[in-house]
């Protein structure tokens, strides 16, 4: 009965492997939460960081991350929407469409550090935007576009062809069918996809080091004139994000409490990404219920 014994051994082994994988995740999350949660306090989340003494917070970095995320989404969502509409509704199968799909695939598999370096060359040096939120947002757009395009294309593809035929049978044009019938039907899954990609953008650092910069100058939160250098919404100021902050203080920082600050920042990053994941699921379901007859 060798085969039966082997079967038992193999099954046991597979259970062990799955157990180890689950254990790795539990240890990772447990480590971050146990080390990071005690650091979190209102003053840690709002006060500016200190480079040479302990007790600094992550207020500016947190704001920069969120602002950069919003700006990136504002730029990349319309482009990804347009591109995926063309790919799914207009493009005819053939050589050129295949080539375009391959290009998007290549773009999505490029290492993010290469995207960052490209952003550095084009936006920071050639277009003279210097290390700024705008350069960072444009680099993140390059990083985000292929993922978002593919996810929206998937959402559009999931809408049944009956809807398209119904629209065309009513005598309205293809464009109107897409914008008035297909897009509203696809909104729930598009929203889920957008929020999931937001989670990835929020944690990205390699593409930002040489585009949004590694410094977080003091901000005056009472000044909302976008042309002032200390205004929080000025897109031309350098902006270190939370993820870049963790990297920076661990690799070249001289902050005495670097480990504590990075544990706290890592906990914030993880919690935000988890929230994005939950939000994506919940909002997708809620919108689906709200927008359809179900």
């Amino acid at each position: 009965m060798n085969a039966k014994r082997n079967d038992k051994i193999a099954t046991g082994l597979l259970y062990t492997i799955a157990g180890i994988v689950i254990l790795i995740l539990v240890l990772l999350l447990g480590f971050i939460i146990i080390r990071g949660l005690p650091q979190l306090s209102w003053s840690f989340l709002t006060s500016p960081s200190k480079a040479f003494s302990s007790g600094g917070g992550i207020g500016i970095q947190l704001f920069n991350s969120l602002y950069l995320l919003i700006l990136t989404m504002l730029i990349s969502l319309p482009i990804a929407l347009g591109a995926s509409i063309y790919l799914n509704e207009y493009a005819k199968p053939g050589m050129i469409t295949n080539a375009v799909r391959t290009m998007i695939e290549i773009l999505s598999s490029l290492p993010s550090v290469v995207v960052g370096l490209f952003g550095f060359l084009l936006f920071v040096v050639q277009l003279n935007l210097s290390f700024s939120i705008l350069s960072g947002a444009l680099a993140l757009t390059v990083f985000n576009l292929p993922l978002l395009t593919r996810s929206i294309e998937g959402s559009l593809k999931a809408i049944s062809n009956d809807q398209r035929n119904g629209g065309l049978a009513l005598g309205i044009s293809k464009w109107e069918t897409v914008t008035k019938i297909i897009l509203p039907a696809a909104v729930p899954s598009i929203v889920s996809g957008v929020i999931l990609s937001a989670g990835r953008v929020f944690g990205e650092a390699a593409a930002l080091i040489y585009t949004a910069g590694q410094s977080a100058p003091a901000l005056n939160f009472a000044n909302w004139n976008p042309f002032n250098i200390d205004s929080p919404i000025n897109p031309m100021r350098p902006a270190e994000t939370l993820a870049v902050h963790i990297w920076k203080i661990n690799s070249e920082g001289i902050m005495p409490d670097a480990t504590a600050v990075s544990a706290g920042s890592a906990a914030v990053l993880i919690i935000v990404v988890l929230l994005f994941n939950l939000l994506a699921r919940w909002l997708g379901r809620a919108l689906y219920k709200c927008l359809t007859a179900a």
Partner: protein
Amino acid sequence: MDKIRESILTTSRASKLERRGKIISLTCLGGICLVVVAIFGFIAYRGLMTFTSDHVSIIKFLTGTEWNPSVSKNGAPLVGALPMIAGSFLITILATVLAIPFAIGTALMMTDITPKTGTRILQPVLELLVGIPSVVYGFIGLTVVVPAIRTVFGGSGFGILSGTFVLFVMVLPTITSMTVDSLSSVPKDYRSASLALGATRWQTIYKVVLRSATPGILTAIVFGMARAFGEALAVQMVVGNATLMPYSLVAPASTLTSVLTTGIGNTVMGTVQNDALWSLALILLLMSLAFNLAIHLIARRGAMKR
């Protein structure tokens, strides 16, 4: 001109809108393609400077073992990229080899052993592992993996081995979820037929399921390798960043990405030191292209077998 004639001869509002919409969406798509071309153009242009304006020979660049761009010997700067290339390949291969059994095992749990509970527990586990940002992996590597390796093997703890462990966790979810896709696309009849012949579950998995899913699993592995090869910050934080040939797994080494992240900011545009870094970026870009090509080739071979 009467109204009917006019409405037939002029373009309607709807068809104007249609044309405009089509043009706008095509522009968006064209923009993305333009970005891809621009990335290759820009990086290739800067990366080739080392060979065109600084007169470094490509062979020497790829096989030289001494990286010290600010020093020149016999009129040519010392830019041997082999230590970084070797470091990148070593870390990528080790991490992937370590991840393969775990990925395939986890995937089998989700498709064949306990599909219901396995998927309910393991699917969120994989999604969470993908969601953790790479700097967090780097930070955990720095505070957990590096000290652990320091106590076990001595030395500083920084090196290829630390990088391998960090990357192992990072590529695991990528390889696993793609393996799940390829395992679940194996027709159910294959499994039933094998079981009906009297094979045990393990024999079915080993002799039928895994073999017919091989092209898909290979694609998953190459995808994982591509991710490992391009990962920058997590590796840079634990690898030690010494541009030496990796003679030991626990000695500080460096990868293409780690040298790029630390170097670009510390060199001046247009100098040899800077050009050499852009050449490393070009290698990174070409490797990413090569991984893509490999995935396409595997997919084509796999499709022909069917």
